[in-house]
């Protein structure tokens, strides 16, 4: 992929967010001029970072994942395939930076659950479910069956834990499938299916992330059951506390960059090591390919460092400030349409979403176009953020939103073409990436704290809903797609008959 082309595309995706923030800052939510300047600087870091990350993902992470998947299937050793799924799932999750942030937050809010036990159980959850995802393809188990069984277990466990924990559990499903794990897991699935010659290979290319996302939800819910936290209520001031006192923007930046660089390096290292081991013992790729993958990993690392620096230093403070100003204002209802608008725009700037849509377009040979998929996702996430803002202002239980959405999502699996069901569940895990968990989450937390809600639960609720709505919208898109395809085929049949 061309770096310049990517730069242009990501700029088009991020700039609308900047525009909205600026418009708000100069009208109903006045921000300090310095904060606006910092936000704009941070946004440029986000754009540059996103471009490098996508280039790197396309060059290194995705090919590596799909070579690995293909090599595993070709080995025809069932124990090696399932064992690798488990090991890969465990190690790529344990290093995901998002997970460590989540872990420390949960540790603060609940006695009896430490960050380490949470991280360990979530990683085990992903490992088990990635193993199941691989086993599903090998043994031809229906995707629908696995998803319904998985979520049935999730809901059975979640119905018995405290409501605050429900939000954390559902949030962790989205949070742990982050920008590093998602491209790799998607590519792994594509690789596993690419060497098979049968009809369901296309459908089996997707769905790995969707199944893997169940793991953390179930793991946290089970942990909540086992430990039965006495004090699970999320305290207002603990949720995602970002230091307000900063020693100056650029000093802060200099302080953050090395830390972020090390974090991202640690997150990429396990994937790189696994690939290196497989390269030596199984794949034995030719030299040029190896070099490309190495460069790809370097660009992905560079890109993520820029991206996280930009979001942490600029997006989070700006989102929080705007949220709390609007939440406290007379016309707080404006948060609902604003949430819809921002949700739709932010999802278009999510790195993992770009990887997913790109892969879908490629695998379907251009049949399922990127803009169409993005539109469906944007609509879903817009609804999710709008509803969450409504919930923040009204303060009702998250179950009222989660149950209908998951009910509809599981019901639709019976009528949606199977390929779209798999893509839908993948998108669910993918949609709630770093853009959502920085900008939208800070906006929600800001809004909730100033409008008298509970910032912790409401913030987590946003992420859980963002992960739930694409399950419905993408499946609906699939039904529409199937209909138009049927129509085209029928028309072709007619014209053939006319020729006779």
């Amino acid at each position, binding site marked *: 992929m061309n770096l310049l082309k990517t730069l242009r595309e990501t700029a088009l995706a991020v700039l609308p967010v900047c525009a909205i923030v600026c418009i708000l800052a100069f009208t109903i939510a006045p921000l300090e001029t310095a904060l606006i300047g910092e936000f704009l600087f941070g946004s440029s870091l986000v754009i540059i970072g996103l471009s490098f990350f996508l280039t790197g993902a396309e060059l290194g992470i995705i090919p590596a994942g799909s070579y690995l998947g293909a090599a595993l299937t070709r080995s025809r050793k069932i124990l090696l395939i399932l064992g690798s799924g488990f090991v890969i799932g465990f190690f790529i999750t344990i290093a995901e930076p998002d997970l460590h942030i989540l872990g420390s937050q949960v540790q603060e809010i609940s006695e009896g659950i430490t960050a380490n036990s949470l991280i360990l159980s979530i990683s085990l959850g992903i490992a088990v479910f990635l193993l199941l995802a691989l086993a599903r393809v090998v043994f031809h188990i229906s995707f629908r069956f696995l998803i319904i069984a998985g979520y049935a277990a999730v809901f059975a466990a979640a119905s018995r834990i405290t409501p605050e924990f429900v939000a954390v559990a559902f949030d962790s499903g989205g949070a742990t499938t982050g920008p590093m794990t998602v491209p790799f897991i998607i590519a792994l699935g594509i690789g596993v299916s690419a060497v098979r010659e049968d009809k369901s290979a296309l459908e089996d290319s997707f769905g790995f992330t969707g199944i893997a996302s169940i793991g953390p939800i179930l793991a946290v819910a089970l942990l909540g059951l086992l430990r039965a936290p006495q004090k699970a209520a999320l305290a207002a001031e603990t949720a995602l506390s970002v230091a307000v006192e900063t020693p100056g923007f650029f000093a802060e930046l200099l302080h953050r960059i090395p830390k972020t660089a090390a974090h991202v390096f640690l997150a990429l290292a396990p994937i790189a090591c696994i690939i290196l081991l497989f390269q030596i013992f199984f794949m034995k790729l*030719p030299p040029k390919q190896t*070099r490309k993958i190495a460069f790809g990993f370097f660009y992905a690392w560079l890109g993520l460092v820029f991206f996280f620096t930009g979001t942490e230093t600029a997006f989070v403070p700006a989102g929080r400030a705007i949220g709390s100003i609007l939440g406290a204002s007379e016309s707080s209802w404006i948060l609902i349409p604003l949430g819809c608008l921002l949700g739709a725009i932010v999802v278009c700037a999510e790195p993992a979403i770009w990887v997913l849509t790109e892969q879908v377009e490629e695998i379907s040979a*251009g049949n399922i176009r990127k803009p169409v998929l993005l539109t469906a996702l944007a609509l879903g996430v817009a609804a999710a953020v709008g509803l969450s803002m409504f919930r923040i202002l009204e303060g009702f239980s998250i179950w009222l939103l989660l149950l209908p959405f998951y009910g509809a999502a599981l019901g639709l699996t019976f009528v949606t073409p199977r390929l779209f069901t798999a893509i839908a569940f993948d998108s669910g895990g993918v949609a709630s990436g770093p853009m959502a968990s920085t900008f939208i989450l800070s906006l929600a937390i800001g809004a909730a704290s100033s409008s008298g809600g509970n910032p912790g639960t409401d913030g987590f609720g946003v992420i859980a809903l963002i992960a739930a709505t694409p399950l419905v919208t993408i499946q609906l898109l699939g039904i529409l797609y199937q209909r138009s395809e049927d129509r085209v085929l029928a028309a072709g049949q007619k014209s053939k008959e006319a020729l006779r």
Partner: protein
Amino acid sequence: MNYEWELHAVVPHGRGERLAAAARKAGARGGTILVGRGEHSSPVLRFLELAEYEKDMLVVLVSAADLDRVWDALKAEADGDGKKSKGILYAQPSGRTQMEADNGHELITVIVNRGYAEDIMDRARKAGAKGGTILHARGTGKPEDEKFFGVAIVPEKEEVLILADTDNSAAIQEAILALPCLTTPGIGIMYTTRVSRFAQLGR
């Protein structure tokens, strides 16, 4: 209806549909678009591994009567918006068609197991090739293929298409054959076909 000619247009990604529409307007019945990739020739970009880009390859079958009209339509459509549509266009006879006068170009096709295409392109470029297109494909299963839980495992393939000057062609083929990673039997095949017409698209 007889389709005596096979037209291939290789253009930047996203341009294939418009060319196909132009071909249809000029009388072609339809077309097939494949998505491939190529590399810019800039050495700096290639060192940084940033040279790769996507392209569309349009394949249209036309009858001898329609050949000129569709050819001109494709060329006009691609040249229409200047440098945006850099690419190539060539025609090959399908079936027993008489060759047109030799235009000095040959098409080298290499089909290899996935992963080797870039090394081949690199080597071909050193031997004088100006560019090439890589298509992602997969092999078909044979009855004797080993089964894995009832499903045949087929090799993933890459197809490398290099349009070369006739003078250069032999050198490029030799260079490719000399690649150390191609010495193992079963990696792939290479063949050369003649090209009847050739045109550079865009300016």
